[in-house]
């Protein structure tokens, strides 16, 4: 992206890197034979799923590995410094001064009891680049460059007074204040909303291209990599499986793994899993004028916060309606209201045209049999002490459906339905992978044959390839069982794949609603347009023969195949 003459200087060389972790099960190799390099002015994206070793590689570059990790072999060279074997003193010289690091989660990566400006200035103080006064001034300047509005005011604030996006800008200021030659950005935006993600990545690109800083960008999102990188390195199972320019890697992937990953990426594959305009079926679930106020803590001046503000929509039977929005949009609160887990301040919830907003006691419990839920995080939504069999049959016991034997039979049916082997029935959640756990949660929700299932971000805690499998499963189940979905998501790309209708929420209000194909093809509201534009991977989509945003990129061969590289072998193949 920058002038080619700057590329002559090599900033980072990693050769045959091997890192292992000591665990209860003995040493586990996390990274094996990884080689890569970053030149001045170049952005290299390191892409992979969880467990691929990409974050470990990034941590090794600044030698900030977890205590249990050990570099087993290989070479890491940063501008002539042998980082893999450097003394603590040398490392202190390299860190901050030659290499800046932007960590994963901005909400926990700043010291909570120190002022933001102080934390930026500290870099300069450590390296003796400025005295206290000058460092303070330069810190404000760095914050300004990082795109923080009112940097003078912000510098005197504490991290908890800033939003996630602002905190990430602070961390970028910290990483860049000493003008290092290399920037290592470890999933810098995965904790942020898409629109914020886009702004931040734009900003990093701008700052680094000005100074010719090399960037090692760690990401799980092929779309982000496609948009931002000069070169892409794909990692899987601790090894580099493929590398090259975005056009090479994404346009013509040679390795099966890359192909599968590409096919699974919702922002890139785009293939819609559901079709047809919503039938004129009567709504199974309808909400009218929902409002939910929460009292604010008195310390914040009291008053109330309107989390949901006059939201109305109807979900036709057997179809999927998606509620889309960023954090704070009120989409999860709306879901809880629809589930009758929370009482609305005003408005009503209708099931089959019957108002159930005031239902209580045993009638409410009867209602629960008709409306079930799948939560975002399968690591939290299953009781860790229970076996899978007990988990999936819990609603059956709650509603006294069948005897012990029938329940056991149903449990076997259910795990088969969600494509899990029968052997999982006796296992506990801790023994399952994330994708398997989510399948268990889906099986539990389906056990009492509900009419409606509320899916609260059902795939956002999962790896892309697992995401794709779960989405396929959900749509297949809908076809098979005719169940109605209320699908909550922050990810427009996912929504486009699985939903028939979409409701876009912002600050608790509905900004746009309609048929998915229609909304995606010609968004009316500027916010919807902004959301759509922020979906990463535009470069690949635009580069593809068929450039329309809602079509399958022609460069991507094949649909979802059975190749699911990152999941355990017993994950259960897709049909």
């Amino acid at each position, binding site marked *: 992206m920058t002038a080619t003459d700057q590329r002559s200087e090599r900033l980072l060389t990693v050769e045959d890197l091997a890192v292992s972790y000591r665990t209860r099960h003995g040493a586990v190799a996390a990274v094996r034979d990884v080689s890569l390099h970053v030149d001045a002015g170049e952005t290299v994206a390191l892409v992979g799923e969880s467990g691929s*070793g990409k974050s470990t590689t990034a941590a090794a570059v600044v030698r900030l590995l977890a205590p249990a990790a050990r570099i087993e072999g290989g070479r890491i060279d940063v501008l002539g410094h042998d980082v893999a074997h450097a003394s603590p003193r040398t490392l202190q010289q390299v860190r901050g001064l030659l290499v800046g690091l932007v960590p994963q989660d901005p909400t926990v990566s700043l010291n909570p009891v120190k002022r933001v400006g102080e934390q930026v200035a500290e870099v300069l103080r450590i390296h003796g680049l400025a005295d206290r006064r000058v460092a303070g001034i330069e810190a404000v300047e760095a914050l300004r460059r990082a795109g923080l509005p009112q940097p003078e005011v912000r510098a005197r604030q504490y991290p908890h007074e800033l939003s996630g996006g602002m905190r990430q800008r602070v961390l970028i200021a910290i990483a860049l204040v000493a003008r290092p030659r290399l920037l290592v950005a470890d999933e810098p935006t995965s904790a942020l909303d898409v629109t914020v993600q886009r702004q931040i990545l734009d900003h990093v690109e701008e700052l680094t291209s000005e100074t010719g800083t090399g960037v090692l960008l760690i990401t799980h999102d092929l779309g982000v990599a496609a948009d931002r990188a000069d070169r892409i390195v794909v990692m899987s199972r601790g090894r580099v499986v493929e590398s090259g320019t975005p056009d090479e890697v994404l346009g013509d992937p040679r390795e099966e793994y890359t192909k599968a990953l590409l096919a699974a990426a919702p922002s890139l594959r785009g293939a819609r899993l559901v079709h047809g305009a919503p039938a004129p079926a009567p709504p199974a679930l309808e909400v009218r004028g929902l409002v939910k106020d929460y009292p604010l803590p008195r310390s914040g001046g009291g008053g109330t916060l309107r989390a949901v503000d006059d939201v109305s929509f109807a979900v036709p039977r057997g179809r999927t309606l998606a509620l889309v929005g960023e954090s704070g949009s009120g989409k999860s609160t709306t879901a809880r209201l629809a589930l009758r887990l929370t009482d609305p301040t005003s408005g009503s919830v209708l099931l089959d045209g019957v108002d159930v907003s005031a239902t209580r006691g045993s009638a409410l419990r009867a209602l*629960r*049999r008709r409306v*079930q839920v799948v939560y975002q995080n399968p690591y939290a*939504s299953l009781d860790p*002490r229970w076996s899978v069999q007990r988990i999936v049959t819990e*609603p059956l016991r*709650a509603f006294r459906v069948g005897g012990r034997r029938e329940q056991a039979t149903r449990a076997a049916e259910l795990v088969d339905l969600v494509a899990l082997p029968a052997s999982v029935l006796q296992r506990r959640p801790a023994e399952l992978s994330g994708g398997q756990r989510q399948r268990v949660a889906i099986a539990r929700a389906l056990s009492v044959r509900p009419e409606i299932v509320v899916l609260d971000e059902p795939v956002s805690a999962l790896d892309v390839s697992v995401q794709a499998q779960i989405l396929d499963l959900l749509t297949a189940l809908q076809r098979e069982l005719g169940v109605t979905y209320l699908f909550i998501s922050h990810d427009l790309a996912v929504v486009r794949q699985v939903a028939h209708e979409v409701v876009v929420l912002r600050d608790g209000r509905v900004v746009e609603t309609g048929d998915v194909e229609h909304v995606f093809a010609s968004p009316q509201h500027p916010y919807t347009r902004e959301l759509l534009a922020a979906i990463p991977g535009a470069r690949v989509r635009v580069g593809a023969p068929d450039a329309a945003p809602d079509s399958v990129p022609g460069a991507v061969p094949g649909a979802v195949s059975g190749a699911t590289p990152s999941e355990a072998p017993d994950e259960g193949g897709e049909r």
Partner: protein
Amino acid sequence: MSTLDSLTTDRGGREPQGFVPTALDPDARADQFATTATDRFADAVAERDGALVRRSVWRSRLDDIVRRPALVLALLWSALVVLAAFAPTVLAPGDPLEGVPADKLQPPSAAHWFGTDQLGRDLYTRVVHGTHLTLEAALVAVAVGLVVGAVVGLVAGFVGGVVDDVAMRVVDVLLSIPALLLSLALITVLGFGTVNVAIAVGLANVASVARIMRSEVLRVRTSVFVEASHAGGSRWWTVLGRHVLPNSIGPVVVLAALELGAAVLAVSSLSFLGYGEPPPAPEWGALVAGGRDYLRTSWWLTTLPGLTIVATVLAAGRISRALDGDPGRAR
């Protein structure tokens, strides 16, 4: 003697962040295990490599124990203490109250492992037979404290609202009085003796147990799987009994082991002060008190019963930490 309440302090008298004891259950532990960055990664890798195969829980637990010699010692010592408490004659067939005046104040020897006291009674026999009194008192104290505290905490945490507010205010007030002083006040009214001491020690601990139980219940109650159970249609008592209680009791069990050590300390302190059984009874604290007058000449009279107490409390603490999944252990 501040140890009694300091122990409970450490367990979260005020619930400092990061001190919530981890659960006892191996699976829950595996889950928490998975929350630190490294281990999560290692888990992912292990899962990927198929290394996370199902192993016998007991087998792996046994492996874990054997690899920790201090824990093995602690378990062996505890077994000895329990044996001494329930079958003292197996370890010391002699009479703890009958002395041979000619053999008075003998230093430790092959005949008298712990030496003899001023009346020529065998100190080892007295320590062994005193175990019963001390351990029984400690067990009663822990039972009283745990049962009352756990019920209060469970109700406060699950019911919430006004009940919670009132219960926790009372707990706050009780915590403002050091546990030992509270025990002393209770003893003043209840009178002396092993049972009264035990009850006093137990009641003095109700507040801290209630606190921990409540915070655990709150943690579990607000967890997603509990909401999932509600949303799935389960009745509230099913949720309480099947999800909340089993998942929040773990830390209380960990606490029980720790509290047992603390109770041994508290009980023997009170018996040292003379509020336990009257003299010839060989309570551990009273044994140390009895040796006080011979400190200059007969070191064993205070040192050996004292070491017995130290070893017992240490063992309880070690076991408690093992139950807690050894939070401090480098992984």
